[in-house]
Protein backbone atom coordinates (compact mmCIF):
# COMPACT_ATOMS: atom_id res chain seq x y z
CA UNK A 1 0.00 0.00 0.00
CA UNK A 2 1.30 3.43 -0.86
CA UNK A 3 -1.11 6.17 0.04
CA UNK A 4 -0.61 9.89 -0.23
CA UNK A 5 0.78 11.60 2.87
CA UNK A 6 2.25 15.05 3.36
CA UNK A 7 5.43 15.51 5.32
CA UNK A 8 4.44 18.34 7.62
CA UNK A 9 1.50 18.67 9.99
CA UNK A 10 0.98 22.20 11.20
CA UNK A 11 0.48 23.02 14.86
CA UNK A 12 -1.16 26.03 16.40
CA UNK A 13 1.35 28.58 17.66
CA UNK A 14 4.27 27.30 15.60
CA UNK A 15 5.88 29.27 12.85
CA UNK A 16 5.07 27.90 9.39
CA UNK A 17 7.78 28.54 6.84
CA UNK A 18 7.61 28.71 3.10
CA UNK A 19 9.77 25.61 2.85
CA UNK A 20 7.29 23.60 4.90
CA UNK A 21 4.46 24.59 2.61
CA UNK A 22 6.52 23.82 -0.47
CA UNK A 23 7.43 20.39 0.86
CA UNK A 24 3.82 19.47 1.35
CA UNK A 25 2.89 20.68 -2.12
CA UNK A 26 5.78 18.69 -3.53
CA UNK A 27 4.51 15.58 -1.72
CA UNK A 28 1.16 15.91 -3.44
CA UNK A 29 2.56 16.79 -6.85
CA UNK A 30 5.07 13.93 -6.78
CA UNK A 31 2.50 11.39 -5.67
CA UNK A 32 0.03 12.35 -8.37
CA UNK A 33 2.58 12.72 -11.15
CA UNK A 34 4.24 9.39 -10.42
CA UNK A 35 0.86 7.78 -10.97
CA UNK A 36 0.07 9.90 -14.01
CA UNK A 37 3.21 8.63 -15.70
CA UNK A 38 2.74 5.08 -14.35
CA UNK A 39 6.08 5.38 -12.56
CA UNK A 40 4.14 4.31 -9.47
CA UNK A 41 0.98 2.25 -9.21
CA UNK A 42 -2.37 2.89 -7.65
CA UNK A 43 -3.21 0.26 -5.05
CA UNK A 44 -6.68 -0.13 -6.46
CA UNK A 45 -8.98 1.69 -8.79
CA UNK A 46 -12.71 1.66 -9.11
CA UNK A 47 -14.43 3.66 -11.79
CA UNK A 48 -18.19 3.99 -11.71
CA UNK A 49 -20.64 6.18 -13.57
CA UNK A 50 -24.19 5.90 -14.81
CA UNK A 51 -23.76 8.61 -17.45
CA UNK A 52 -20.27 8.50 -18.94
CA UNK A 53 -18.08 5.62 -20.05
CA UNK A 54 -16.36 4.74 -16.76
CA UNK A 55 -13.04 3.76 -18.29
CA UNK A 56 -11.42 4.71 -21.58
CA UNK A 57 -7.88 3.92 -22.63
CA UNK A 58 -6.61 5.76 -25.71
CA UNK A 59 -3.15 5.19 -27.12
CA UNK A 60 -2.00 7.88 -29.53
CA UNK A 61 1.38 6.29 -30.19
CA UNK A 62 2.34 2.73 -31.05
CA UNK A 63 2.78 1.25 -27.57
CA UNK A 64 0.41 -1.39 -26.22
CA UNK A 65 -2.95 0.02 -25.21
CA UNK A 66 -3.84 -2.32 -22.33
CA UNK A 67 -1.83 -4.89 -20.41
CA UNK A 68 -3.42 -7.03 -17.71
CA UNK A 69 -0.92 -8.97 -15.64
CA UNK A 70 -0.94 -11.75 -13.09
CA UNK A 71 2.03 -11.19 -10.81
CA UNK A 72 3.97 -9.53 -13.59
CA UNK A 73 3.06 -11.94 -16.38
CA UNK A 74 0.89 -10.49 -19.12
CA UNK A 75 -2.33 -12.49 -19.45
CA UNK A 76 -4.45 -10.12 -21.55
CA UNK A 77 -3.08 -7.61 -23.96
CA UNK A 78 -4.48 -5.12 -26.42
CA UNK A 79 -1.68 -4.16 -28.75
CA UNK A 80 -1.48 -1.16 -31.03
CA UNK A 81 -4.08 -1.59 -33.72
CA UNK A 82 -6.42 -3.38 -31.35
CA UNK A 83 -4.96 -6.87 -31.61
CA UNK A 84 -6.10 -8.81 -28.57
CA UNK A 85 -3.92 -11.58 -27.16
CA UNK A 86 -5.08 -13.76 -24.28
CA UNK A 87 -2.04 -15.68 -23.16
CA UNK A 88 -3.84 -17.97 -20.75
CA UNK A 89 -6.48 -19.44 -23.03
CA UNK A 90 -7.74 -22.95 -22.45
CA UNK A 91 -7.06 -24.83 -25.64
CA UNK A 92 -6.65 -28.55 -26.00
CA UNK A 93 -6.11 -30.73 -29.05
CA UNK A 94 -5.72 -34.44 -29.33
CA UNK A 95 -5.57 -36.90 -32.20
CA UNK A 96 -5.64 -40.60 -32.94
CA UNK A 97 -2.11 -41.71 -33.65
CA UNK A 98 -2.73 -44.92 -35.61
CA UNK A 99 -5.50 -46.74 -37.43
CA UNK A 100 -8.25 -48.29 -35.37
CA UNK A 101 -10.07 -51.22 -37.02
CA UNK A 102 -13.72 -51.63 -36.04
CA UNK A 103 -15.52 -54.91 -36.66
CA UNK A 104 -18.85 -53.60 -35.46
CA UNK A 105 -21.00 -50.76 -36.69
CA UNK A 106 -22.16 -49.94 -33.16
CA UNK A 107 -21.36 -46.54 -31.68
CA UNK A 108 -17.99 -46.61 -29.95
CA UNK A 109 -15.58 -44.07 -28.58
CA UNK A 110 -12.93 -42.55 -30.80
CA UNK A 111 -9.93 -43.21 -28.60
CA UNK A 112 -7.91 -40.08 -29.26
CA UNK A 113 -4.64 -41.00 -27.63
CA UNK A 114 -2.18 -38.19 -28.34
CA UNK A 115 -2.78 -34.83 -26.67
CA UNK A 116 -0.63 -32.11 -28.20
CA UNK A 117 -1.15 -28.92 -26.19
CA UNK A 118 0.39 -27.65 -22.97
CA UNK A 119 -3.03 -26.96 -21.50
CA UNK A 120 -4.51 -30.41 -21.35
CA UNK A 121 -8.14 -31.35 -21.02
CA UNK A 122 -7.87 -34.73 -22.77
CA UNK A 123 -6.51 -37.83 -21.17
CA UNK A 124 -4.79 -40.52 -23.20
CA UNK A 125 -8.09 -42.32 -23.67
CA UNK A 126 -9.67 -39.41 -25.49
CA UNK A 127 -11.88 -38.12 -22.68
CA UNK A 128 -11.91 -34.39 -22.04
CA UNK A 129 -12.55 -33.08 -18.52
CA UNK A 130 -13.59 -29.46 -18.20
CA UNK A 131 -11.46 -27.59 -15.70
CA UNK A 132 -13.20 -24.23 -15.97
CA UNK A 133 -16.88 -23.64 -16.73
CA UNK A 134 -17.74 -21.64 -19.80
CA UNK A 135 -18.49 -21.67 -23.48
CA UNK A 136 -16.33 -23.97 -25.59
CA UNK A 137 -15.82 -24.32 -29.32
CA UNK A 138 -15.41 -27.95 -30.33
CA UNK A 139 -14.09 -29.09 -33.71
CA UNK A 140 -13.79 -32.79 -34.40
CA UNK A 141 -12.58 -34.40 -37.58
CA UNK A 142 -12.67 -38.19 -38.00
CA UNK A 143 -11.41 -39.92 -41.14
CA UNK A 144 -12.89 -43.35 -41.82
CA UNK A 145 -12.45 -46.06 -44.40
CA UNK A 146 -15.56 -48.24 -44.81
CA UNK A 147 -15.30 -51.87 -45.77
CA UNK A 148 -18.39 -51.74 -47.99
CA UNK A 149 -20.05 -49.13 -50.16
CA UNK A 150 -23.10 -47.11 -49.21
CA UNK A 151 -21.92 -46.61 -45.68
CA UNK A 152 -22.92 -43.56 -43.69
CA UNK A 153 -21.34 -42.46 -40.45
CA UNK A 154 -22.59 -40.71 -37.35
CA UNK A 155 -20.55 -38.72 -34.87
CA UNK A 156 -22.05 -38.58 -31.38
CA UNK A 157 -20.73 -36.28 -28.70
CA UNK A 158 -21.50 -37.43 -25.18
CA UNK A 159 -21.42 -35.31 -22.06
CA UNK A 160 -20.93 -36.82 -18.62
CA UNK A 161 -19.65 -35.89 -15.20
CA UNK A 162 -16.48 -37.00 -13.48
CA UNK A 163 -17.25 -39.94 -11.20
CA UNK A 164 -20.52 -40.81 -12.90
CA UNK A 165 -21.00 -43.60 -15.41
CA UNK A 166 -23.99 -41.98 -17.08
CA UNK A 167 -23.72 -39.63 -20.01
CA UNK A 168 -25.99 -38.06 -22.59
CA UNK A 169 -25.71 -37.52 -26.29
CA UNK A 170 -25.61 -33.76 -26.73
CA UNK A 171 -24.64 -33.39 -30.38
CA UNK A 172 -24.87 -35.54 -33.50
CA UNK A 173 -23.57 -35.21 -37.05
CA UNK A 174 -24.50 -37.70 -39.79
CA UNK A 175 -22.66 -37.99 -43.08
CA UNK A 176 -24.38 -39.17 -46.24
CA UNK A 177 -24.05 -42.59 -47.76
CA UNK A 178 -21.28 -42.97 -50.24
CA UNK A 179 -21.29 -45.10 -53.31
CA UNK A 180 -17.96 -46.81 -53.48
CA UNK A 181 -15.35 -47.57 -50.91
CA UNK A 182 -12.96 -44.76 -50.13
CA UNK A 183 -11.63 -42.76 -47.26
CA UNK A 184 -13.96 -40.03 -46.07
CA UNK A 185 -14.16 -37.55 -43.25
CA UNK A 186 -16.92 -36.92 -40.75
CA UNK A 187 -16.83 -33.63 -38.97
CA UNK A 188 -18.45 -31.79 -36.10
CA UNK A 189 -18.29 -28.08 -35.25
CA UNK A 190 -20.08 -27.08 -32.07
CA UNK A 191 -20.39 -24.42 -29.38
CA UNK A 192 -20.99 -25.98 -25.99
CA UNK A 193 -21.86 -24.54 -22.60
CA UNK A 194 -19.99 -26.71 -20.13
CA UNK A 195 -19.62 -26.86 -16.37
CA UNK A 196 -16.54 -27.72 -14.36
CA UNK A 197 -15.87 -31.47 -14.14
CA UNK A 198 -18.14 -32.30 -17.04
CA UNK A 199 -16.61 -34.69 -19.54
CA UNK A 200 -16.78 -35.00 -23.30
CA UNK A 201 -16.40 -38.18 -25.28
CA UNK A 202 -16.72 -38.54 -29.03
CA UNK A 203 -18.19 -41.70 -30.52
CA UNK A 204 -18.63 -42.85 -34.08
CA UNK A 205 -21.09 -45.32 -35.54
CA UNK A 206 -21.84 -46.61 -39.01
CA UNK A 207 -24.92 -48.04 -40.64
CA UNK A 208 -23.09 -50.91 -42.20
CA UNK A 209 -20.29 -53.33 -41.61
CA UNK A 210 -16.93 -52.73 -40.04
CA UNK A 211 -14.62 -49.89 -40.95
CA UNK A 212 -11.30 -48.35 -40.05
CA UNK A 213 -10.84 -45.08 -38.22
CA UNK A 214 -7.82 -43.60 -39.93
CA UNK A 215 -5.17 -42.23 -37.58
CA UNK A 216 -3.03 -39.12 -37.99
CA UNK A 217 -2.88 -35.61 -36.58
CA UNK A 218 -4.10 -34.20 -39.89
CA UNK A 219 -7.05 -36.55 -40.22
CA UNK A 220 -8.59 -37.59 -36.92
CA UNK A 221 -8.43 -34.89 -34.27
CA UNK A 222 -10.48 -33.11 -31.65
CA UNK A 223 -9.87 -29.45 -30.78
CA UNK A 224 -11.48 -27.75 -27.81
CA UNK A 225 -11.18 -24.05 -26.99
CA UNK A 226 -12.79 -22.04 -24.20
CA UNK A 227 -14.11 -18.93 -25.94
CA UNK A 228 -15.99 -17.30 -23.07
Amino acid at each position, binding site marked *: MSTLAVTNTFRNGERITAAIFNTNYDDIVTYVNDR*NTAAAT*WDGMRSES*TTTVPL*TANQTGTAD*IVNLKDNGTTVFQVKDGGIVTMASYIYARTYLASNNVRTSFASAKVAFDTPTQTTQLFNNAGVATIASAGLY*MAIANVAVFPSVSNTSFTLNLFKGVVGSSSSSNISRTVTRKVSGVSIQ*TTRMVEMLSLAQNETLTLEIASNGAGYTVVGGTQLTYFSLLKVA
Partner: protein
Amino acid sequence: MTNLAVTNTFVSGAIITASGHNTNYSDIVNYINNRNTAVASWDGVSVASSTIVPLTVDNGTGTQNIFEVLDNGAGVLVVKDGGYVDMAGQPRVRAYRSSNQSISAGTGQVTFNAETYDLKGEFAAGVYTAGHTGLYLFTATVAVSIGATDVIQLTLIKNGVTAVAATFVPAVSGVTPSVCVADIQSMTAADTMEVSLTCTNNMTVTGTEFQTFFTVYKLA
Protein backbone atom coordinates in the same frame (compact mmCIF):
# COMPACT_ATOMS: atom_id res chain seq x y z
CA MET B 1 2.43 14.68 -20.83
CA THR B 2 0.20 16.70 -18.55
CA ASN B 3 1.51 16.52 -15.04
CA LEU B 4 0.17 18.27 -12.00
CA ALA B 5 1.88 21.54 -11.16
CA VAL B 6 1.02 24.17 -8.59
CA THR B 7 1.21 27.83 -9.53
CA ASN B 8 2.98 29.24 -6.51
CA THR B 9 6.25 28.27 -4.92
CA PHE B 10 6.67 30.17 -1.70
CA VAL B 11 9.88 32.05 -0.95
CA SER B 12 11.38 32.22 2.48
CA GLY B 13 10.97 35.67 3.99
CA ALA B 14 8.20 36.67 1.62
CA ILE B 15 4.62 37.06 2.66
CA ILE B 16 2.62 33.89 2.09
CA THR B 17 -0.86 34.93 1.18
CA ALA B 18 -4.12 33.05 1.50
CA SER B 19 -4.77 33.56 -2.17
CA GLY B 20 -1.45 31.95 -2.99
CA HIS B 21 -2.53 28.86 -1.12
CA ASN B 22 -6.00 28.91 -2.60
CA THR B 23 -4.56 29.00 -6.09
CA ASN B 24 -2.34 26.01 -5.37
CA TYR B 25 -5.19 24.05 -3.83
CA SER B 26 -7.33 24.87 -6.85
CA ASP B 27 -4.58 23.59 -9.11
CA ILE B 28 -4.61 20.28 -7.26
CA VAL B 29 -8.38 20.00 -6.98
CA ASN B 30 -8.97 20.84 -10.62
CA TYR B 31 -6.31 18.41 -11.80
CA ILE B 32 -7.79 15.52 -9.85
CA ASN B 33 -11.43 16.36 -10.49
CA ASN B 34 -10.90 16.73 -14.23
CA ARG B 35 -9.55 13.17 -14.26
CA ASN B 36 -12.30 11.94 -11.98
CA THR B 37 -14.91 13.15 -14.45
CA ALA B 38 -12.85 12.10 -17.49
CA VAL B 39 -12.73 15.69 -18.77
CA ALA B 40 -8.96 15.18 -18.80
CA SER B 41 -7.03 11.95 -19.10
CA TRP B 42 -4.19 10.38 -17.20
CA ASP B 43 -1.13 9.89 -19.36
CA GLY B 44 -0.90 6.33 -18.09
CA VAL B 45 -2.40 4.24 -15.33
CA SER B 46 -0.87 1.30 -13.54
CA VAL B 47 -2.74 -0.50 -10.79
CA ALA B 48 -1.22 -3.26 -8.72
CA SER B 49 -2.43 -5.19 -5.71
CA SER B 50 -1.80 -8.59 -4.21
CA THR B 51 -4.95 -8.53 -2.10
CA ILE B 52 -7.78 -6.71 -3.83
CA VAL B 53 -9.04 -6.64 -7.41
CA PRO B 54 -6.75 -3.98 -8.87
CA LEU B 55 -9.22 -2.54 -11.33
CA THR B 56 -12.99 -2.52 -11.22
CA VAL B 57 -15.19 -0.79 -13.75
CA ASP B 58 -18.93 -0.42 -13.25
CA ASN B 59 -21.46 1.43 -15.38
CA GLY B 60 -24.07 1.18 -12.66
CA THR B 61 -27.63 1.44 -13.90
CA GLY B 62 -26.60 3.32 -17.02
CA THR B 63 -26.59 1.87 -20.51
CA GLN B 64 -23.41 3.45 -21.79
CA ASN B 65 -20.34 1.40 -22.61
CA ILE B 66 -18.40 0.02 -19.67
CA PHE B 67 -14.90 0.07 -21.14
CA GLU B 68 -13.52 1.55 -24.33
CA VAL B 69 -10.08 0.81 -25.72
CA LEU B 70 -9.10 3.30 -28.39
CA ASP B 71 -6.22 3.34 -30.82
CA ASN B 72 -5.63 6.98 -31.64
CA GLY B 73 -9.29 7.70 -31.01
CA ALA B 74 -10.76 4.73 -32.87
CA GLY B 75 -12.50 2.04 -30.83
CA VAL B 76 -10.74 -1.30 -31.12
CA LEU B 77 -12.15 -3.11 -28.10
CA VAL B 78 -15.37 -2.11 -26.41
CA VAL B 79 -17.14 -3.74 -23.49
CA LYS B 80 -20.73 -2.66 -23.93
CA ASP B 81 -23.51 -2.42 -21.42
CA GLY B 82 -24.43 -5.95 -20.41
CA GLY B 83 -20.88 -7.16 -20.98
CA TYR B 84 -20.93 -7.62 -24.75
CA VAL B 85 -17.42 -7.39 -26.13
CA ASP B 86 -16.62 -5.99 -29.56
CA MET B 87 -13.10 -6.53 -30.81
CA ALA B 88 -13.04 -4.41 -33.93
CA GLY B 89 -9.28 -4.60 -34.23
CA GLN B 90 -8.93 -8.36 -34.12
CA PRO B 91 -7.29 -9.80 -37.26
CA ARG B 92 -9.74 -11.47 -39.60
CA VAL B 93 -9.80 -12.58 -43.20
CA ARG B 94 -12.43 -13.92 -45.55
CA ALA B 95 -11.07 -14.63 -48.99
CA TYR B 96 -12.90 -16.31 -51.84
CA ARG B 97 -12.51 -17.51 -55.39
CA SER B 98 -14.27 -15.13 -57.76
CA SER B 99 -14.01 -17.23 -60.93
CA ASN B 100 -13.67 -20.89 -61.73
CA GLN B 101 -10.20 -22.33 -61.25
CA SER B 102 -8.85 -25.39 -63.00
CA ILE B 103 -6.48 -27.57 -61.03
CA SER B 104 -4.64 -30.36 -62.75
CA ALA B 105 -4.52 -33.88 -61.44
CA GLY B 106 -2.37 -34.07 -58.36
CA THR B 107 -2.18 -31.30 -55.82
CA GLY B 108 -2.71 -27.60 -56.43
CA GLN B 109 -3.23 -24.47 -54.40
CA VAL B 110 -6.72 -23.04 -54.28
CA THR B 111 -5.99 -19.48 -55.28
CA PHE B 112 -8.50 -17.35 -53.46
CA ASN B 113 -8.31 -14.18 -55.53
CA ALA B 114 -10.78 -11.83 -53.88
CA GLU B 115 -11.57 -10.74 -50.35
CA THR B 116 -14.76 -10.10 -48.44
CA TYR B 117 -12.64 -8.63 -45.66
CA ASP B 118 -9.00 -8.58 -44.62
CA LEU B 119 -8.73 -6.21 -41.68
CA LYS B 120 -4.96 -6.15 -41.31
CA GLY B 121 -3.94 -6.90 -44.87
CA GLU B 122 -2.58 -10.32 -43.99
CA PHE B 123 -3.80 -12.24 -47.02
CA ALA B 124 -2.12 -12.15 -50.42
CA ALA B 125 -1.73 -14.49 -53.40
CA GLY B 126 -3.76 -17.21 -51.72
CA VAL B 127 -1.64 -17.23 -48.58
CA TYR B 128 -2.47 -16.01 -45.08
CA THR B 129 0.48 -14.70 -43.07
CA ALA B 130 -0.09 -14.28 -39.35
CA GLY B 131 0.82 -10.80 -38.17
CA HIS B 132 0.85 -11.79 -34.52
CA THR B 133 1.48 -14.87 -32.45
CA GLY B 134 -1.68 -16.45 -31.07
CA LEU B 135 -4.45 -18.94 -31.52
CA TYR B 136 -6.39 -18.85 -34.79
CA LEU B 137 -9.54 -20.43 -36.19
CA PHE B 138 -9.26 -21.53 -39.81
CA THR B 139 -12.08 -22.72 -42.05
CA ALA B 140 -12.10 -23.46 -45.74
CA THR B 141 -14.98 -24.48 -47.98
CA VAL B 142 -14.45 -25.36 -51.61
CA ALA B 143 -17.04 -26.34 -54.21
CA VAL B 144 -15.43 -28.51 -56.85
CA SER B 145 -16.50 -30.38 -59.97
CA ILE B 146 -14.86 -33.77 -60.27
CA GLY B 147 -15.52 -37.13 -61.80
CA ALA B 148 -18.15 -39.46 -60.41
CA THR B 149 -15.59 -41.83 -58.95
CA ASP B 150 -13.01 -39.28 -57.84
CA VAL B 151 -11.95 -38.73 -54.27
CA ILE B 152 -10.57 -35.36 -53.29
CA GLN B 153 -8.68 -34.01 -50.36
CA LEU B 154 -8.82 -30.48 -49.00
CA THR B 155 -5.81 -29.53 -46.96
CA LEU B 156 -4.69 -26.67 -44.80
CA ILE B 157 -0.97 -26.21 -45.33
CA LYS B 158 1.03 -24.49 -42.63
CA ASN B 159 4.34 -22.91 -43.58
CA GLY B 160 4.24 -24.71 -46.91
CA VAL B 161 5.37 -27.98 -45.48
CA THR B 162 2.79 -30.38 -44.10
CA ALA B 163 -0.97 -30.63 -44.14
CA VAL B 164 -2.30 -29.54 -40.80
CA ALA B 165 -5.81 -30.75 -41.40
CA ALA B 166 -7.39 -32.59 -44.27
CA THR B 167 -10.67 -33.99 -45.37
CA PHE B 168 -11.87 -36.30 -48.05
CA VAL B 169 -15.14 -36.62 -49.87
CA PRO B 170 -16.12 -39.12 -52.52
CA ALA B 171 -17.80 -37.59 -55.49
CA VAL B 172 -21.34 -38.17 -56.54
CA SER B 173 -22.30 -38.02 -60.17
CA GLY B 174 -24.23 -34.96 -61.24
CA VAL B 175 -23.48 -32.71 -58.30
CA THR B 176 -20.75 -30.28 -57.34
CA PRO B 177 -19.82 -31.26 -53.82
CA SER B 178 -18.54 -28.84 -51.25
CA VAL B 179 -15.68 -29.95 -49.08
CA CYS B 180 -14.76 -28.11 -45.95
CA VAL B 181 -12.21 -28.22 -43.22
CA ALA B 182 -11.84 -26.43 -39.90
CA ASP B 183 -9.35 -26.38 -37.08
CA ILE B 184 -7.84 -24.23 -34.37
CA GLN B 185 -4.13 -23.71 -34.79
CA SER B 186 -1.44 -22.05 -32.72
CA MET B 187 0.48 -19.66 -34.97
CA THR B 188 3.67 -17.71 -34.53
CA ALA B 189 3.98 -14.33 -36.18
CA ALA B 190 4.96 -14.79 -39.86
CA ASP B 191 3.61 -18.36 -39.99
CA THR B 192 1.62 -18.97 -43.16
CA MET B 193 -1.48 -20.96 -43.98
CA GLU B 194 -2.88 -21.83 -47.39
CA VAL B 195 -5.33 -24.27 -48.89
CA SER B 196 -4.74 -27.01 -51.42
CA LEU B 197 -6.80 -29.61 -53.26
CA THR B 198 -5.64 -33.07 -54.21
CA CYS B 199 -7.26 -35.38 -56.75
CA THR B 200 -6.10 -38.06 -59.16
CA ASN B 201 -7.96 -36.32 -61.98
CA ASN B 202 -8.42 -32.75 -63.12
CA MET B 203 -10.66 -30.55 -60.99
CA THR B 204 -12.63 -27.35 -61.48
CA VAL B 205 -13.16 -25.17 -58.45
CA THR B 206 -16.41 -23.26 -58.56
CA GLY B 207 -15.62 -19.58 -58.21
CA THR B 208 -18.27 -17.78 -56.22
CA GLU B 209 -18.10 -15.79 -53.01
CA PHE B 210 -20.56 -18.00 -51.17
CA GLN B 211 -19.27 -21.41 -52.28
CA THR B 212 -15.49 -21.28 -52.22
CA PHE B 213 -13.97 -19.34 -49.38
CA PHE B 214 -11.29 -19.30 -46.68
CA THR B 215 -11.73 -17.63 -43.30
CA VAL B 216 -9.25 -16.80 -40.57
CA TYR B 217 -9.89 -15.25 -37.15
CA LYS B 218 -7.50 -14.66 -34.28
CA LEU B 219 -9.18 -16.18 -31.25
CA ALA B 220 -6.63 -15.42 -28.56
